[in-house]
């Protein structure tokens, strides 16, 4: 899952802390999503896209990825 949160943040002149506070999550969560370390739930993805007043597909794009075997 790829996202353009960083781009939209820059467009709205927001820091990670600002966005996190507005959405109701921690800054680490925004950072983890931006870096692709954490895939947000549908609910959180909708909240983020709704905050930027765009459709969810404009912020998040799904891409097939090769899954590695390990402790998931």
């Amino acid at each position: 899952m790829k996202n353009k949160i960083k781009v939209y943040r820059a467009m709205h002149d927001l820091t990670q802390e600002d966005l996190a506070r507005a959405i109701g999550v921690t800054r680490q969560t925004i950072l983890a999503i931006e870096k692709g370390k954490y895939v947000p739930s549908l609910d959180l993805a909708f909240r983020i896209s709704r905050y930027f007043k765009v459709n969810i597909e404009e912020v998040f794009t799904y891409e097939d990825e090769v899954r590695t075997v390990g402790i998931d």
Partner: protein
Amino acid sequence: MKKNIFYLIIGFVALLLLAVFWYSVENFTPVFSMIAFVLGVIVIYAAYRRVDDYIEDERSARITEKAALRTFQVFWVCFCAFSILEVMNLLYMPHFSREHWFERSSTTGLLEVMSPRMIGYIQLGLLCLMIFLYVGFRFYYAKKYGEWETDEE
């Protein structure tokens, strides 16, 4: 109330509980430690309700959930394997040697390889191991889900 003050209160309550426990042991009155435990839980709960800078979002909930799940998986395998081993020992495992079969009358009865007290201690040790396992898994998943990433661009 700040989160760190809440953690300090937990530590303070734990110390008090420990002191009351040993006081009740020395005075042969378990009711002290029982009352102290209930009061400790109430104090911690009241303090938890007053914490205002603690945000538990879905990522942190997921880290907790995954760490707990993996801990239980590993723990139950170890715990059950050890318990089954001891039950097999206590219940006299079947032998397949001819000599043992002919001399079975002299060896019937419970075969105690490890004393029940030792079994209890090892099972308690496994329970304590669960705490370390949980902390380890929590570190693993926290790192995996970007807990300590610090860049702000």
